[in-house]
């Protein structure tokens, strides 16, 4: 969507900081195609204004605080070692754990991987500098539509981030965990992660991307773009776990392009952050593709969590399922948008979406907006959404069994949230998330 400048902004210090960082990055050596891609990102950035509430896509998502901050990009800061932090609680047992620190891969604290021949899991920077460069060149930017000033900004800063390549017909027997840590060792650090996951035809993999904040600084900002390419018949299970702490900010745009009969199973779990927006765009461009987007957001205090989903049915016989659940407490603000577009000719589309919200306080707010736009006639599309407190009759049932209201609500909230986490197929990750949810909601029960 092209955006026109409606107001002439006063001098924009945030923008100036980013432009200065871009000039610094330009001094570093890079392949010509990457320099060109970044320059295009910079040009798009120059043409866009910061998202604001008059834009339909950002109507209820006030990210004004993002524009009021002067960020320090890691292109201008020395690399940080993680010696002071213990990453072990965040690693997933039995997985290949690959650790990124403030936007850059850290081999010293990552697992070495013995992947099948031809498969690569690691860092985008390494891929750009190595034999996989042609692959990166072919796919990078291939999924990304024009989205916002922030996605343009990310492109202008492409350096490093998670990278996965699985060749045709190969199945990864060990799942890959990209653990992205914001060290918060000083205030206002920005990381422009760029992730690229490519599964060739009939390839299969399970991936998790975890974003956590560790440290004392405040207001770190992850500005992430993730591109996912699934070849014909490929199958990817993708889990994103976001815990940006109490002051962290994160905008993430995930764009997935699916081949014929491919399958995408996504689990997006937001546990914390001051401002978190997960934009999840799926292009079902070939017949028979199937996408399952599951989400859970646990929103408390004064945080803003926005899940913005776009699924485009651009071919026949594709299936999409959206199931997002939210637990809303404190004075938190949540937004859920599920936009399903069925283009002309995309017959036999089968689409369902559900958004359920459990309201734990009188001051929490949620905007739940399923949006269907259908230009084909032989389709099956449904949607539903609920917002409400734990049903009083259920709370009374607990109380009639000796369990007080507070404990009952905790248990109910745990059950509501666990229902989503419980669907994650990998047992190690499921246990880890279940533990987090259990500790958060279930007080005083002897497990």
């Amino acid at each position, binding site marked *: 969507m092209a955006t026109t400048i409606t107001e002439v902004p006063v001098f924009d210090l945030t923008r100036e900081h980013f432009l200065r960082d871009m000039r610094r990055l330009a001094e570093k050596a890079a392949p010509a195609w990457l320099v060109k891609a970044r320059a295009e990102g910079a040009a798009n950035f120059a043409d866009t204004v910061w998202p604001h509430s008059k834009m339909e896509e950002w109507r209820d998502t006030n990210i004004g605080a993002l524009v009021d901050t002067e960020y320090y990009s890691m292109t201008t800061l020395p690399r940080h070692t993680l010696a002071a932090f213990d990453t072990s609680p965040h690693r997933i047992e039995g997985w290949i754990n690959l650790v990124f620190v403030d936007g850059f891969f850290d081999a010293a604290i990552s697992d070495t991987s013995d992947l099948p021949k031809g498969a690569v899991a690691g860092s985008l920077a390494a891929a750009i500098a190595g034999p996989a460069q042609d692959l990166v060149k072919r796919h990078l930017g291939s999924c990304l539509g024009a989205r916002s000033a922030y996605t343009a900004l990310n492109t202008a800063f492409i350096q490093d981030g998670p990278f996965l390549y699985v060749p045709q017909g190969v199945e990864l027997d060990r799942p890959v965990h990209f653990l992205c840590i914001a060290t918060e060792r000083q205030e206002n650090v920005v990381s422009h992660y760029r992730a690229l996951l490519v599964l060739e035809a009939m390839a299969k993999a399970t991936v998790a991307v975890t974003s956590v904040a560790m440290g004392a600084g405040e207001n770190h900002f992850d500005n992430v773009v993730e591109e996912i390419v699934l070849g014909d018949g490929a199958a990817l299970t993708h889990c994103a776990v976001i815990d940006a702490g109490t002051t962290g900010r994160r905008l993430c745009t995930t764009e997935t392009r699916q081949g014929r009969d491919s399958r995408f199973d996504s689990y997006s779990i937001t546990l914390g952050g001051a401002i978190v927006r997960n934009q999840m765009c799926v292009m079902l461009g070939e017949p028979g593709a199937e996408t399952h987007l599951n989400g859970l957001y646990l929103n408390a205090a004064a945080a803003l969590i926005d899940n913005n989903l776009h699924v485009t049915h651009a071919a026949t016989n594709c299936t999409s399922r959206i199931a997002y659940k939210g637990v809303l407490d404190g004075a938190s603000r949540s937004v859920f948008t599920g936009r399903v577009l069925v283009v002309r000719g995309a017959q036999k589309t089968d689409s369902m979406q559900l958004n359920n919200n459990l309201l734990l306080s009188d001051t929490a707010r949620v905007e739940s907006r399923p949006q269907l736009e259908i230009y084909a006639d032989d389709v099956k599309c449904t949607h539903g959404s609920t917002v409400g407190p734990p*049903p009083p*009759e*259920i709370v*009374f*049932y*607990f*109380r*009639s*069994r*000796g*369990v*007080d*209201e507070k*404990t009952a609500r905790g*248990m*109910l909230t*745990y*059950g*509501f*949230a*666990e*229902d989503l986490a419980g669907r994650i197929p990998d047992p190690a990750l499921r246990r880890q998330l279940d533990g987090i949810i259990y500790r958060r909601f279930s007080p005083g*029960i*002897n*497990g």
Partner: protein
Amino acid sequence: MLEICDLHASIAGKEILKGINLSVKEGEVHAIMGPNGSGKSTLAQVLAGHEAYEVDLEKSRVTFLGQDLLDLPAEERARLGLFLAFQYPVEIPGISNSYFLQASLNEIRKSRGLEELDAMDFDGLLQEKMKMVEIDPGFASRAVNAGFSGGEKKRNEILQLAVLEPRLAILDETDSGLDIDALRVVSEGVNRLRSPNRAFVLVTHYQRLLDYIVPDFVHVLYKGRIVKSGGRELALELEEKGYDWIKTEEDAGVPA
């Protein structure tokens, strides 16, 4: 153990219970019968502590094990040993039967100064009780009542009763919707739990339950009052003659 004196309760401004008097002693089994809408479930829910009902505290007195029941919130009544098997048990998606019951049992144990059971010990207990009420062990990990058939829900209430071992159990139409095998299982469960220091109040429409669980007393509730009390033979009489004779008697004798 339970003394109900002149209990008045209303909902949405409408008086439903209009002066109930009932005395239940340890070891006794009371059956409460009566036409639809007479207030049987209301009585059960009021005793369990449902706050939607407004109890007239000026008139009403209820003591349970020497305590003023109407003063206590629902959870404390349960901890004291009161149990209600619901006429319509609710479904609790996302919470397993065993997790629910373990939490419940431990709250009750805690309030009595007993040690909480850990998952292992509780599992053993649950298995044993499930066998007793002939519930498939798979139900332990299923969400409470979610997708259970009507009969399975009722049986699950009896399982909870068996695990929690209350002093007074009120069963609100636990026999409705049960097939003959389930009725046998439920009744056997109750009979096994009968003991000199445990009492039961059975709300039912059917004499056939009372063939299995023989009551000491039968009461007829009509328009918010207990209008007739007797022994087991009263249930047989009701079975034979229906409620019309009671209604006629009452409606003639009681000014509208």
